[in-house]
């Protein structure tokens, strides 16, 4: 675990220094490159947590369908709706990431 943290720090610290130099020299603000970093990390975290949430939803649905096969169709409908609603949270993060990457409000 410690070597992982050391490796991450060894990569990120020079990257931060390099990233801070480039736009300041070009005349932009110092926030620009970090927005790309933020977009990437945000989407990764959102996708991971969305996977966990959807996994729990499907697990409950499948267990309920195994317990009562007669109600399988209604459980499946509820499961599909639940999955789409959980996924929409990750889609909101995707929209913010797209704004940061393509609209670039802060250069």
């Amino acid at each position, binding site marked *: 675990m410690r070597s992982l943290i050391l490796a991450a720090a060894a990569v990120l610290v020079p990257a931060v220094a390099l990233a801070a130099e480039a736009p300041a020299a070009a005349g932009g603000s110092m926030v620009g490159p970090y927005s790309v970093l933020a977009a990437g990390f945000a989407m990764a975290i959102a996708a991971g947590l969305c996977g966990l949430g959807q996994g729990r939803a499907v697990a409950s649905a499948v267990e309920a369908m195994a317990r009562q096969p007669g109600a399988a169709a209604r459980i499946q409908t509820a499961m*599909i*709706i639940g999955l*789409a*609603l959980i996924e*929409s949270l990750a*889609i*909101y993060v*995707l*929209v913010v990431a*797209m704004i940061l990457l*393509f609209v670039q409000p802060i250069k």
Partner: protein
Amino acid sequence: MGAIEHPPIFRLPGVPDHVLYTWIVMAILIGVSWMATRRVALVPRGVQNFVEVVLEQFIQMIDDVIGREGRRYLPFIGTLGLFILVCNLMGLVPGLMSPTGNLMTNGACAIIVFCAYHYIGVKKQGLVHYLKHFMGPVPALAPLMIPIEVISHLARPLSLTLRLFGNMTGGHILLAVIFFLMGLDGLIGWALSGSTAGTIVGGLGGLVMIVFTVGFLYPLKILVSFLQAFIFVMLTMLYIAGAMEGAEHDEHHAEPHTAHH
């Protein structure tokens, strides 16, 4: 984004793209409806049969979620659902765009749903009675419940818009990147350029990506199109059911009075 952007093929000079493709979707839906009702038969055949099957699915969903009195909203819900479905599917054809990949179309549909379910609720229960449901279960909690309810009701059209927009545009960007990687600027262009390394690696890579796109990405996008239209319609029906259901609480309140007398 400039390298992978590809505007749609059909464009009109003064008209925004998403409006033009909305007109194309309208023409498709009106054409199918006209073909289905040309000679209405008691035992349906052909296009009428297909359209009746689709409408039966809508009626079943409405019966499940809203109840029998929700059937009067079938024209609204059916039009909304079929419009969003055909809009989504149009984005799959390379060269056309889907109007639901644009925030304006989704925002319009979401605002229509917002106004519709409030109007239905007010018409069924009366304005004062409908607003009383914003105050929550216990009137003492009203100062806490009203801001929460208002914000959650305002978040509904926003979430409808962004959910549909994110799904459609995310799929569009994914397809654009894949086409760019494997197209004439990428792997297949490298394969056709004549160098030996290009032919082997570019050919194999291009073939793998073509199989991946046609076999996995396109079915996934078709599934997402149907699913997102279904989710939009299901949420509309749930909001209408929520706006109409307040009246039932009062019928239950009235029962004990008549029972005692």
